[in-house]
């Protein structure tokens, strides 16, 4: 990897903005319910989770009302999962651009990562309303929230680069992707708090960087008082590793994109 790659990326930042803007515009223009999808999706998932896991299975929720507990994790999770599926197809879906114009190819997965934030923001507004409804006040640790969100965005970008580049080369990545996301959901503390797990399972879960970011996000938002810094640290290290791996893999394969996409 050389500095040219990064300077090019910076030089084309305006195009990054335009590609993200196009994604957002098109998404809302085509959908009958428009922007409300951003809220409906995590909301319905929350209702189902509350019924099955909160009421029937009586999964503990750190002393927070279960709907709020699950919704708080579902908003960032929805962002993460929809970004992966969007970004995974971003290169193949824009093959006409790739074969006709030069620009840093990493802009395409990056644009998916960026455009998803609009949906995330709307979900976050709804989350704030729910906190008011349940009279849950954020504590002093609220200022840590951006750190966890930043970590999650970086993670989304790293994984997106790998998936998007692999999808160009191997077209069945597209079929494996929904499956991957589904499994990822269950190994992330969304339905349950991480304290719910046995120490052995916890150690296993630490390999999932989303676990540290989501658990940290929830802990800092609700100020539950038990922040697992070792888990968070592991997530950060794994994310940095994935970012370097992803960028290297992407950089190595991108020269052939136009020939095989």
């Amino acid at each position, binding site marked *: 990897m050389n500095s040219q790659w990064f300077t090019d990326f910076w030089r084309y930042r*305006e*195009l990054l903005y*335009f590609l993200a803007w*196009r994604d957002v*515009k*098109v998404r809302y*223009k*085509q959908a009958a319910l428009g922007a409300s999808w951003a809220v409906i999706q995590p909301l319905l998932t929350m209702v189902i989770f509350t019924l099955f896991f909160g009421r029937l299975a009586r999964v503990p929720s750190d002393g927070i009302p279960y709907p709020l507990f699950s919704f708080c994790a579902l908003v960032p999770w929805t962002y993460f999962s929809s970004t992966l599926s969007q970004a995974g197809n971003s290169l193949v879906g824009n093959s*006409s*651009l*790739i*074969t*006709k*114009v*030069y*620009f840093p190819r990493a802009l395409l997965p990056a644009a998916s990562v960026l455009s998803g934030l609009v949906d995330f923001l709307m979900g976050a507004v709804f989350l704030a309303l729910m906190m008011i409804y349940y009279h849950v006040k954020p504590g002093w640790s609220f200022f840590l929230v951006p750190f966890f969100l930043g970590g999650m965005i970086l993670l989304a970008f790293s994984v997106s680069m790998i998936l998007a580049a*692999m999808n160009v*080369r*191997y*077209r*069945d*990545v597209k079929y*494996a992707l929904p499956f991957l996301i589904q499994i990822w959901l269950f190994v992330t503390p969304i339905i349950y708090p991480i304290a719910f797990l046995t120490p052995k399972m916890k150690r296993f879960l630490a390999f999932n960087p989303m676990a540290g970011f989501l658990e940290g996000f929830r802990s800092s938002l609700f100020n539950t008082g038990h922040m697992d810094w070792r888990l968070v640290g592991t997530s950060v290290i794994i994310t940095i590793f994935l970012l370097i791996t992803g960028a290297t893999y992407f950089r190595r394969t991108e*020269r*052939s994109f*136009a*020939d*095989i996409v």
Partner: protein
Amino acid sequence: MSQAISVEKVSKKFVLGALQRDTMLRERLISMLRAPFRGRSASPNVLWALRDVSFRVDAGEVVGIIGRNGAGKSTLLKVLSNITYPTSGEVHVSGRVASLLEVGTGFHEELTGRENIYLNGSILGMKHGEVAAKLDSIVEFAGVAQFLDTPIKRYSTGMRLRLGFAVAAHLDPDLLIVDEVLAVGDAGFQRKCLNAMDGLRSGGRTVLFVSHNMAAVENLCSRCIWIDAGHVVKDGAPREVIEAYMNTFANARDGMADLRSAKDRRGSGEIRYTGVEYLTTSSEPLQVVRSGDAFVIRFHYHANSPIAFPSFGFRLYTEFGTLVTDTSTWHHAIDIPLVPPGDGYIDLQIDFLNLLPAHYYFSLWITGAASPVHDNIEHCAQLEVALANVYSSGRMLDSRSGIVFFPQRWKVSEPVLAGASAKIEEA
């Protein structure tokens, strides 16, 4: 003069077949499990789209690139535009580059005309402020002011093309790379494109463009490069290069042009042209065709199976690619119920050839009743109209006098003639 492009021994290899086999991760994993220590087997199917191509272009040159389909022209443009990378060799391009390999790249159906102008401009490398400043001019050029806030899925093909080209025409690059945009659109659109490119040229910009329109290459370019099978065949003054290129299409000048081994052929192949022959009206072989002649063009064909209701036709082009005429049995509403399998021919009798002396080229086609094209060969046979005493004036005319002539008489009014004879008498 500074150098705009330098291409040094560039080659580009495509591996055919290997791609299809390895596009599934599943299969790749399986093959790795089966034979973990064997590398990917080498594919014998290798295509060299470019092979040792070298040339330099100075700033301010307008270079046309010509060649058959699949010769490597588009690959060359893509390599120069940084879209694809050469397998070996070096490419250096200086200055702000704009590549127009397609009109309206990145247009999105759901977005409005205005939104697409910004998006397309940004994709082509314009800054937001730049597009905003040129918006009015772009809209005017495209002539879509009324529909600026309509999604372009409601646009006609023509409007879309105009919009795409309007954005591109406002790029203001140091080097413009254009691929065959002239092939699309109506005559008005094409003229607009050519004018815009001419504007760039007079502004001292470097232009590199691929075209099958030989007249455009001849008129616009200061230099022409002919590429075939990935090699530069000829590089020089447009007129010479075009002539050399066009000559390869018709190697049989006299007697019968054999088309059985013609390249660049499309269609089902159920029935194929096999040759073109020129005959006198009494069916003797014709050696020389002259302007004003009556003669017969005999098109030989071979059918593999019975062909119902075929239409036989051809287009005739000048050597610079201008279409002279397009005619067929269909144009004359001639129904041919069935062509039996085997060899046969169809004659076109011309009573008076009103073409001026030059080289002309045939593109031949046969279509079926329901099924589409049976045979289609571009620029396959040559019609050489020899230097002739066209107006029976003793003055020999050639291609510099145009393409066609028609029976005509000049009348000089009596007073002028009378005045002239008076002058002569005075002297």
